[in-house]
């Protein structure tokens, strides 16, 4: 994952004209260039949602660039020493900036003795002394306690805003979100960012929402937030990042073979390059082995490949592949195939997509291959399942634009004869659907493979028998064996072992 807050397209450091970049991964991308110089922004959220980290991260990132001073004023009763001690574990914290480039002051005594006017006088004096680029007020709820009514708070914000706008200082007002308070002062600020921390079932989910951003466009809606040792990391919703895909990919299409002779013939040479394919099948049907064959065949032809899976760690995959004579290890060692394994734990949907897309964007080599094993790992990571159709559409579009040929597995139920896709939307967004299934005949299980759909392309519609042997993945040369299985007329093949 990249450290910068750049957009996936890579905005230049320093930000758009008149903007100050927060350096918080992807916040500036959501704000399409960062905060405006001289703007005043409310950042609100419950305790633990990351407000204080966000404010400090902004200050330390700016201090690291040497672009100017920051003032962090706290209105909380508790000492900011404790806050600084907690920040020490975060990577952005650089002690050399404290009191040199970032000045921490407490406004509580001035507020307690002089009310909102006393605090404003202190702020004017402090900003005049340090001339900061960023000014953060943490604990705006204390102002509400000491100010004489909501109107006074609004006037305070208005006066502060007038002052900071004239000095070009970007101001963040950090506030606890109190459902009983009307926040009329939010009418005068330039932007409102909400951080939330809610329980969705057993999962705790942090999100960021921009409710208002004067003078600029921004990515609307909720975006996933992580707090790690890097501080706040935001994962914008995939479908809103890529809501305007180009009308078509520009590259000349070629066929991307699997290296499985008869199956490649069924596909008239392979999958069209820059397309997405759903590979459906019950557990054990052979999806992973067919996917690894696809990557290894690409590597053999000099095309780079990425495996992105949730269930089998790389050593296990390499071992399984070796057992059926797929030389995966050789190509992993040479760097032609990369194995990215996500342990099946609690993930975030957009974070997963980002990891994968950023890996893809590391190079612009043409004709790359991707094997995603499987899509249910993404579905499990989704807090809002109704996002999946739009997510998959945007995700697949991004892969196409990068000239990536993607093979995405989808697990079907093991014990049901009817075929019911858990993600029917997947079939809509991909160009090709390949089905692997089991058929039981005379106490034997047989595997069958068929191409169910291949958009704007010729393909063989027959159902073929599919085998995984010590020699690799094999597909029968004709539909006869499959027909025999399906009609119950199987017979012993000449010279071969007994088949049902």
């Amino acid at each position: 994952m990249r450290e910068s807050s750049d957009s996936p397209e890579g905005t230049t450091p320093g930000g758009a004209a008149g903007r100050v970049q927060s350096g918080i991964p992807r916040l500036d991308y959501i704000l399409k260039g960062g905060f405006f110089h001289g703007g005043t922004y409310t950042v609100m959220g419950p305790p633990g949602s990351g407000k204080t980290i966000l404010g400090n991260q902004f200050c330390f990132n700016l201090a690291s660039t040497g672009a100017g001073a920051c003032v962090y004023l706290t209105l909380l009763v508790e000492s900011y020493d404790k806050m600084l001690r907690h920040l020490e574990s975060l990577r952005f914290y650089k002690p050399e900036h404290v009191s040199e480039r970032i000045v921490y002051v407490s406004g509580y005594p001035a507020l307690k003795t002089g009310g909102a006017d006393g605090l404003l006088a202190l702020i004017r004096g402090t900003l005049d002394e340090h001339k900061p680029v960023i000014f953060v007020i943490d604990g705006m709820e204390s102002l509400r306690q000491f100010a004489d009514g909501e109107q006074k708070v609004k006037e305070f914000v208005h006066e502060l805003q007038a002052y900071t706008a004239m000095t070009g200082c970007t101001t963040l007002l950090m506030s606890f979100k109190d459902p009983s308070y009307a926040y009329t002062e939010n009418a005068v600020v330039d932007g409102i960012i909400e951080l939330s921390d809610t329980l969705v079932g057993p999962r705790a989910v942090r999100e960021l929402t921009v409710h208002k951003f004067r003078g600029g466009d921004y990515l609307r809606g909720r975006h996933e937030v992580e707090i790690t040792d890097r501080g706040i990391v935001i994962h914008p919703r995939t479908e809103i990042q890529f809501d305007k895909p180009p009308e078509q990919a520009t590259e000349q299409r070629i066929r991307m073979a699997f290296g499985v002779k008869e199956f490649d013939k069924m596909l008239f040479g392979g999958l069209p390059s820059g397309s997405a394919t759903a590979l459906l099948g019950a557990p054990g049907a052979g999806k992973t082995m067919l996917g690894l064959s696809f990557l290894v065949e690409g590597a053999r032809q000099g095309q780079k490949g990425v495996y992105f899976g949730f269930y089998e760690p790389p050593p296990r995959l390499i071992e399984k592949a070796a057992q059926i004579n797929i030389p995966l290890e050789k190509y992993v060692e040479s760097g032609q195939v990369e194995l990215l394994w996500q342990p099946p734990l609690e993930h975030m949907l957009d974070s997963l997509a980002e990891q994968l897309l950023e890996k893809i964007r590391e190079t612009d080599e043409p004709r790359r291959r991707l094997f995603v094993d499987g899509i249910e790992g993404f579905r499990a990571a989704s807090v809002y399942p109704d996002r999946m159709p739009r997510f998959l559409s945007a995700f697949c579009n991004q892969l196409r634009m990068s000239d990536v040929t993607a093979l995405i597995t989808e697990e079907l139920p093991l014990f049901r004869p009817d075929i019911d896709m858990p993600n029917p939307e997947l079939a809509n967004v991909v160009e090709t659907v390949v089905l692997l299934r089991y058929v039981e005949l005379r106490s034997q299980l047989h595997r069958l493979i068929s191409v169910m759909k291949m958009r704007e392309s010729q393909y063989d519609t027959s159902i073929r028998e599919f085998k995984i042997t010590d020699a690799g993945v094999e597909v029968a040369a004709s539909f006869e064996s499959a027909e025999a299985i399906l009609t119950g007329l199987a017979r012993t093949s000449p010279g071969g072992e007994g088949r049902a």
Partner: protein
Amino acid sequence: MKTVLVVDDEFDLTSTLKAVLEDRGYRTCVCATGRETIDCLRHTRPDLILLDVMIPLGSGYTVLDRVRATADLAGTPVVLMNNVPPPADRAVRWQAFIRKPLSLAAVVEAVEKLIGPGASAGREVT
């Protein structure tokens, strides 16, 4: 009774230091900004100054410069307090430095070492 001027903008910290020092027999004055401290020093001659560096309206270093430039304050012991050590290139014009977050024992020890125990020290509790 010896007087300690406590300069810090953190309310919880000054409240605690004031109470602890008064319990130990020192008189205390409290200031929260650089400007307030300089005003206070026009009419107060403390025996020791506990001086936070990061204060609004004139930093602790600005106050220190003023103290050292004032004839009858120049010899007043100053204990600097901050979250980070003072830069090495600054001339050493303070008697002690205590890193924040503060340890109460370190503060009391520095005060007692520089100006001796407070009025209540050694008194028997009856």
